[in-house]
């Protein structure tokens, strides 16, 4: 908690044009860029909103350029968009079946959003913020998936959707027990989905920042400058590669779990 205090301290110092080394948690600090209030709720435009908007701008350019003039024999941009879309479509075909194609745009949107937010957050120097390192954002996305799964489930199967939780061929007592566990696990899905992504992103960025701090502190060792900073710098380079991998893998995992949950709703196992 004192780290949080340090970070807040830093903000005040920065306002006074002073210098201060930010703590590893400072990067997750929400900075209000334009205060806004809607129906009594705080809806300020923050650095998180800004980077979400940048991510959507990047996705928009990618999509609009890639599909500007779709052709049977695709150009580079179109091939890139198709590659990602094909990836999502195959994932849905494998995990949901032929019914799954209908949800391809939604899963594609979620995948692209998480992926681009994760990747943009890794940009050094530009003060990048990672919206997906905030549980508010990941929880919002996870509840979007959860809501869609519930709607699809009840819309396709009605109250029969509850048979998803009922074990077949068991007596009532055991059945009720399993039913309870299944309902709890179903209700916990949005939280696990949200926490997985948030925790991965947060941990990665904290690690990067910690080693970044080591570069500065060890590199500024007076008697032998720079030399000791090389090792943590090398570690940071390797970590950045790892974080790139994690950024992609976590976006994939998020989309994969979303399609698995959709499979439950569409096919009831």
């Amino acid at each position, binding site marked *: 908690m004192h780290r949080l205090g340090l970070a807040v301290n830093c903000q005040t110092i920065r306002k006074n044009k002073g210098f201060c080394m930010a703590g590893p948690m400072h990067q*997750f600090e929400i900075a209000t860029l334009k205060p806004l209030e809607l129906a009594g709720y705080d809806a300020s435009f923050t650095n998180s909103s800004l980077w979400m908007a940048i991510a*959507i701008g990047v996705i*928009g350019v990618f999509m609009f350029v890639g599909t500007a003039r779709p052709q049977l024999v695709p150009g580079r941009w179109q091939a890139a968009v198709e590659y990602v*879309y094909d990836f999502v479509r195959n994932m849905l075909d494998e995990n949901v079946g032929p019914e799954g194609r209908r949800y*391809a*745009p939604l899963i594609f*949107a979620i995948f692209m959003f998480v992926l681009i937010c994760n990747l943009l957050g890794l940009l050094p120097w530009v003060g990048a913020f990672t919206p997906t390192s905030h549980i*508010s954002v990941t929880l919002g996305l996870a509840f979007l998936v959860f809501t869609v799964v519930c709607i699809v489930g009840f819309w396709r199967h009605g109250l029969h959707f509850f048979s998803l939780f009922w074990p077949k061929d068991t007596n009532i007592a055991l059945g009720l027990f399993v039913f309870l566990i299944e309902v709890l696990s179903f209700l916990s899905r949005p939280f696990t989905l949200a926490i997985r992504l948030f925790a991965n992103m947060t941990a990665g960025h904290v690690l990067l920042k910690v080693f970044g701090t080591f570069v500065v502190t060890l590199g500024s060792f007076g008697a032998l400058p720079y030399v000791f900073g090389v090792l943590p710098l090398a570690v940071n380079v390797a970590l950045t590669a790892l974080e790139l991998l994690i950024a992609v893998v976590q976006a994939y995992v998020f989309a994969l779990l979303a399609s698995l949950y959709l499979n439950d709703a569409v096919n009831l196992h």
Partner: protein
Amino acid sequence: MPQFDFANVFWPQLFWLTALFAVLYFGIIRTTLPRLSKVMDEREDRITADLASAREAKEMSDRVAEEYQAEINRSREEARGKLAAAKLEAAKASKKRLAAADKRLSAKVAEAEQQISAARNAANAALRDIAAEGAEAIVARLTGDAPGRKAALARVDAILGGVN
């Protein structure tokens, strides 16, 4: 951690996430993806159709090649039959011609043999006369007494008969 400062952090992010994701889904994905998936489906259909027509063409060419092979085999068989028949015919004809030539030649040989034996008989007859004449002349010169043609002939016949 700033993330758990829900009072200050939750609503602004949720509001902007909802708004921006709506823009992303309805404004970007929904307007661009259908065009792309239409083209991708078209391409898939086209490829399937092309593959089907290629398969069909291959089947047809296979069938034609099979027919061609069968035709070749059939005509080869036919040619072989014709060749055998022609060979048989030729053998028959040459046999016939050989027989005819044989006949003709043996007739000629027989005629020649006849002529030879005739010539030999004639020569033998002439030899008898000459021998008798010679013997008559020799005896007349040696003895001065002509033995007469008949006696000489008888002697010659006796000797020639002994020789022959």
